[in-house]
């Protein structure tokens, strides 16, 4: 995390990515590896199985960055990725989780 204040963090424009993947060990590494090798911080990650467990859905919260369109293209190239959908930061999926992420 960089030195920005929490409120400032929220002021930075965010995007939410919804990613459908094949469910097997290693998929998460493929996905987050694309971000880490470019020093592109992933601010939030959620993942649960869907469709009787053959597939999973990964939700990523990321900062808006000029590299984001390239990141989406790189995600789409991964063999185990079925679809990538981009949402705005106000998507409910992370907002509803805020209660679990209050400072102690």
């Amino acid at each position: 995390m960089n030195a920005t204040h929490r409120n400032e963090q929220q002021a930075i424009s965010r995007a939410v990515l919804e990613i459908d993947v094949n469910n097997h060990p290693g998929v998460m590494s493929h996905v987050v590896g694309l971000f880490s090798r470019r020093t592109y911080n992933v601010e939030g990650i959620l993942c649960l199985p869907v469709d009787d467990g053959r597939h999973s859905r990964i939700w990523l919260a990321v900062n808006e960055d000029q590299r984001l369109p390239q990141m989406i293209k790189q995600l789409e190239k991964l063999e185990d990725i079925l679809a990538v959908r981009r949402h705005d930061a106000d998507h409910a999926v992370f907002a509803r989780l805020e209660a679990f992420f209050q400072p102690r």
Partner: protein
Amino acid sequence: MTETLTGAQLTIRLIERQGIRTVAGIPGGAILPIYDALGQSPLIHHVLARHEQGAGFMAQGMARVSGKPAVCLASSGPGATNLLTAIADAKLDSIPLVAITGQVPRAMIGTDAFQEVDTYGLSLPITKHNFLVGSAEELLEVIPRAFAIAASGRPGPVLVDIPKDVQTQAIDITSWPEPGQATRTPPPTATQIATAAAMIDAAQRPILYLGGGVVHAGAAKAAVDLAEKADLPTVMTLMALGALPVDHPLSLGMLGMHGARHTNLALDECDLLIAVGARFDDRATGKVAAFCPQAKIIHIDIDPAELDKIKTAHLAIGADVGEALGQLLPAVGEQRRERWLARIDELRREFPFQMPDAGNPRSHFGLIRTVAACLDDTAIIATDVGQHQMWVAQAYPLRRPRQWLTSGGLGTMGFGVPAAIGAALAEPQRTVVCFTGDGSIMMNLQELITAAEEKVNVKIVLMDNASLGLVHQQQTLFYGERLFASQFRVTPDFIKVAQGLGIAAVDLDLAANPCAALMDAIARPGPCLIHASIDVDQKVYPMVPPGAANHDMIGA
């Protein structure tokens, strides 16, 4: 009919069914079941490399000349880590490779077992895709898919990590899967082709910019046809050399860091850049903001992620370049661009490529030109990485796609000798010449004995300046001539080294008639090392300093 086969036998049968007839590798504990099965194969010839990286580059050599996926094998742990450089090199140059590694038994994964390493994790960022196989049944799907992925779209390396107990697990087989094949990519739309054709027809000063993708797609002929019909001056990246014969009237040769000055200056003036299977690599573009500043850009590439990555295209076409060029050819108008070609000729006359001392076989350019004079276009030319590589790229008359094997993206010293061996294994009817340097050859020197064992027709031309030439050059030009760690204080007797590793050797330094000695060495069948000392003070010129714009070249 039902057969009971182990995972190892299955793997070999599936590879045979892919049409693989030569593999390179080194056995070890965790891949011994596969080697046991491989030893029983009546179809596959195994080449025993002396280092796994050598095996990886031999497979690359086979893949680069054939355009088809090639296979290398290694054991777990150090076997797998030694392969990684060759895999990363294949990734950056889009070479189809299937690397098969042994892994410790499933029950021991994660226990820091002997020769256990996280091959899957290590290979993640340097493969197109990778697999850790969980059962013998899975192999039936994974192996054909590995070949399909390696060959489809933009080609690349695929790694298949197979635990030892999966290799020994026996299962019943009643039917075999179809071999994995390249899948077709969506064609360009009619609108895209029409727009591209209109842009080409309307352009006053267009340039065609060919990348390695043209070679991979087998589209060199289509590119030449388009260039000729629309009268397009054409530049090539390092990876595309040979796609258009470099002495074709429309050829401007290689662009970028070590391209000719007139080539880079022509790009400065172009009003339309047609990039085909190229990725605007920094060595080609120089400072991106100053690259083709006046040009509209048409970018055709099979990999959508390359479009708009470095330069935003006015027209981006995500398609197989062969198909796109094929559709573009009838759509463009026949043109004679007299004014633009006259301007290019003017630049060529004013800023010609300087090849000093090219008539002297004891000079770097002279040696390269003399080698070329001994050969015809059927020869394969491989290089290592360094000054010699750039001089060969500048001076060798490459005229055929897949004639030229070089490590472009990763720039791996040590590539040349094993890649040349692989090329000779895949196409034994051809003479393979490997230009190398005294720095590069030391990085996979052990493969000379593999060349001897396989009796491959590889001629290694060693340009020896007793230094790491490109480092020496950069320290001289940009680090105040503070030469550090770029000159070897002790150098091997390469003639004795080659002879000690079982191959013939000729020292041009001692030859009364170097041309005759060279011709004789090249004409004799089998592997041979040809040693020639060159001047350490010779630079690769012209040169765009790192970070500068391409028009700010230094040197002649």
